[in-house]
């Protein structure tokens, strides 16, 4: 676990060019269009009390890719994005939940327990291409539905929020 944290910290250092995440103010503001705003009980912030991330910054985080079909699309697709495990590491979360909200203000609650290896990702590429709002982009919480039956439930489907743009962390 420590190794994991160390790794993640190293990642952040690499991303943000920081030696230590001790000072939030030290985090750089995003250069491009902000596609995700994280608020709530977080230690790392860059704009006001929030952590805002553009596409480049998200891409800098460790990426996870898997193939799966979904009930909202036709056929099997490849999704690439930041796994929830990696995200909560970055956010330094041990427990609690995430309140994910879409562009149309649709909000769902995702418990930290969902963040497991081989679990959901916040996808920013579908079939290697960026997703527009019309294609449920720019971010879409995708679970590997095909990998196990537990991911093909009403609850999981409701947590698979698309057109995601905000996350509030509640410890």
């Amino acid at each position, binding site marked *: 676990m420590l190794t994991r944290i160390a790794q993640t910290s190293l990642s952040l250092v690499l991303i943000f060019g920081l030696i230590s995440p001790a000072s939030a103010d030290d985090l750089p503001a995003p250069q491009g269009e902000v596609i995700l705003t994280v608020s709530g009980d977080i230690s790392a912030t860059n704009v006001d009390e929030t952590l805002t991330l553009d596409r480049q910054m998200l891409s800098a985080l460790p990426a996870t890719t898997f193939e799966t079909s*979904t009930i909202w699309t036709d056929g099997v697709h490849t999704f690439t994005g930041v796994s929830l495990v990696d995200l909560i590491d970055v956010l330094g979360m041990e427990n609690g939940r995430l309140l994910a909200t879409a562009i*149309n203000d649709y909000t769902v609650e995702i418990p930290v327990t969902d963040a497991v290896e081989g679990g959901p990702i916040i996808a920013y590429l579908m079939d290697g291409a960026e997703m*527009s709002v019309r294609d449920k982009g720019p971010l879409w919480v995708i679970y590997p539905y095909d990998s196990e039956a537990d991911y*093909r439930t009403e609850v999981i*489907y409701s947590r698979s929020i698309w057109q995601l743009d905000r996350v509030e962390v509640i410890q």
Partner: protein
Amino acid sequence: MLNNLPARKSNGRKLAMLAGLVAVGAIALLTDNVSREIRLLGSARSDNVQWALVQTQVEFLEFTQQIDLEPVNPAELRLEFDVFYSRVATIREATVFEELRSDPSSSLHLDGLVAFLDEAVTIIDSPDDDLLGQIPQLLRLSEDIAPTVRALGNSGLDAFAQSADSQREAVARTMTQLAIAIVTLIGVLLMAILFLNRLNAQITRREQENHQTSTRMTTVMSTSLDGVIVCDSNGLILEFNPAAEHIFGRVEKDVLGQEIGSVIVPDHLRDAHDAGMERMRNRGEKRVVGKGRVQLEAKHHDGRIFPVELAIQSAATDEGEIFIAFLRDISKRVADEAELVEARDKALASEKLKTDFLSTMSHEIRTPLNGLLGNMNLLRDTELSQQQDRYLGYMETSGRLLMSHISDVLDITRYDAGKLNTRSEPVNISALFQDIIDNQGSTAAKNETSLTWDWHGPSMDWVLSDHDRLQHVMMNLIGNAVKFTRRGKVTVIVENTGTSDAPELFVKIQDTGPGMSEDLAKRVFDDFVTGNTAYDRDVGGTGLGLSIAKRFVHALGGEIGVDSILGQGSTFWVRLPVSIADAPEEDNGDDVAPHQPGQSQLVLLVEDNEINRIVAREMLQSERHTVVEASDGRQGVDTAKTTRFDLILMDISMPIMDGRAATRAIRAGNGACKDAVIVALTANAMPEEQKEFLADGMNDILTKPLSRDALRALLKKTGGVRENCEIPMINKSHNAETREALGEETYVRLRSRFVSEVDEFREWLGADEVRDYLEISTYSHKVAGSAAVFGADQLRGTLKEIEAAAKVGDVKAIKDQEWALVDIWQETKLQLSN
């Protein structure tokens, strides 16, 4: 019942299995259905489609609100449009909306919506200025499409509601079916439990029964008095019960598994046993098995061979055919039987010895007696004083009585030895009774008793029976009645009491004599029973007469009995089955004319007993025949070779060679007498023996004691009648002797007395009166004695004939002789006077 059980059980089992399979199949099918339903429910493929549809309207409203804003914010407008666009795209593409898309009206609405988006997107994607310029157009487009958006939402709701309903119904139906299947299965299981329970009970019961049966069998086996050995088809012993252990001296554990032949079969029977086993194995041939009780020999452990009785039965078992042998040691029984047989044989032997002894003794007594009687007969031919003549008469009477007693004893011996055979010959019943009545007439007259006989009902003259036996019986019964009745009446009634098919002779002899006590009447037919009356002394008797009569009647297949009242008389009755016979042809030439002696013949007399030989010789010589003697069969045969004899008299039992063998030898040889007349001389020839004698080649049979009459009759047959009488009327030399001895004066006096004596006799005999036979014989005997003194041989001979005829009650013969006497006496008187 027991046979049906397994079939029923298996049927039940099949049925239960089938029902169970059907139920399990149904349940499996339904479970599959249910699990599919559950999977469908569980995987929630529908997402929240209704919410998504409603959201379409919401997002469309948010988009239209952006259009209505003053001023319009292009970025916000585009964002709201994109969100709406994304929603519609999802509905168009997502698998969860497949159902909705298949609904025609929803599909129509969706197509309208897509057309709107396609048109609006060109406006939205244009630069801000253009966009703002085209707001009114966008507004108009969205106002046009608004009802379609609402309609899509409604139709979607309808479709999903229907789908949900049908899904619920499907689930409910499946659940109901499942419930029914489960109930059925439970039912089947319950039935199966019941069935198994019953089966279990049955099996338990059968096990108990088997156990009981087995216990019972074990008890039976162990307590059986018979040895029981069970073996398989190879003869290997499976069981050996305690009784078998005892019988064979073996212990069960030692013999189990051994071949039965090696254990109990004696060595000399082993090959036969092995062959039998082989036969049975190869061809299923069973010679002892199932054939009931068989007696065989068996081997004891110590090597002793003993007899056993055994029965073997086979039975089919799961392990193949088995054989159960029941054995019994019958050594004791066999020994007992042997002892019994020995005892019986001894008894029979001793009985036979007794009979033989009696028979032999009787015979041995009879032979010398014959000699005595014959010699007495010859003695009569000599000159006797009156006193001597009287004594000779007594001797003859005693001798005949003794002879009759011996004959009685012989008859009884024969009957008891089963040798008393009867003849079946034509018998004239009327003649038989008439003869007996005539014979007994004088005695009856002496006792002043009337003696009569008659047929009751139609007569039945000729029947098939045994003349001699019948005569003997009737003579005895009638003789007794006459003997015991004084001044009374004896009535003989003869009757045919049978049917035309089975005639039956019924004879009743009623007398008015002293009668018998009931006790005596019961015993009267037993041996040696004599009446205890005052007349006994007079009548004498061995007490065998009635017992012999009874034996004869039984031998003839009849019954005899007596009804008697003491002091009033007795009625003896005889009932005999007979059959009607034809009257035999009259033998005209059979009349014996003894007063006309035949030609002198050459006779060979073969007889071992010297006295008998002498008697016969004397008789023959007195008839002027020439006699050659031989003392045994061999001598006889030798003599007969060279000389031609007119007659051979052949005794039967002789030493060296008996009469039968001698006869056969003479007939078989080529001697002079090959065709001569051979006549058997026998004392006790039975009918079948007589047949054998004839088969041996004999021409006739003469019964001993030899009587002059019988001999004469025979010689007449063989020699023929000679017209000229050779016997002189007067034996001159004898007459001369008498004349000389007496002196002339006495001779003449006696001669005249003799003449008047004969005349008186003739007168007496010719008188028309009923005469007693005894009187006739005595009288003629007396006159004959006088004739002998004067050498009047012919006269004497004729008188002797009358005497003999009277003795046997032959009325006809007496009459004939009486006529013959007329001429002879005339001639004799004439010659005597010279």
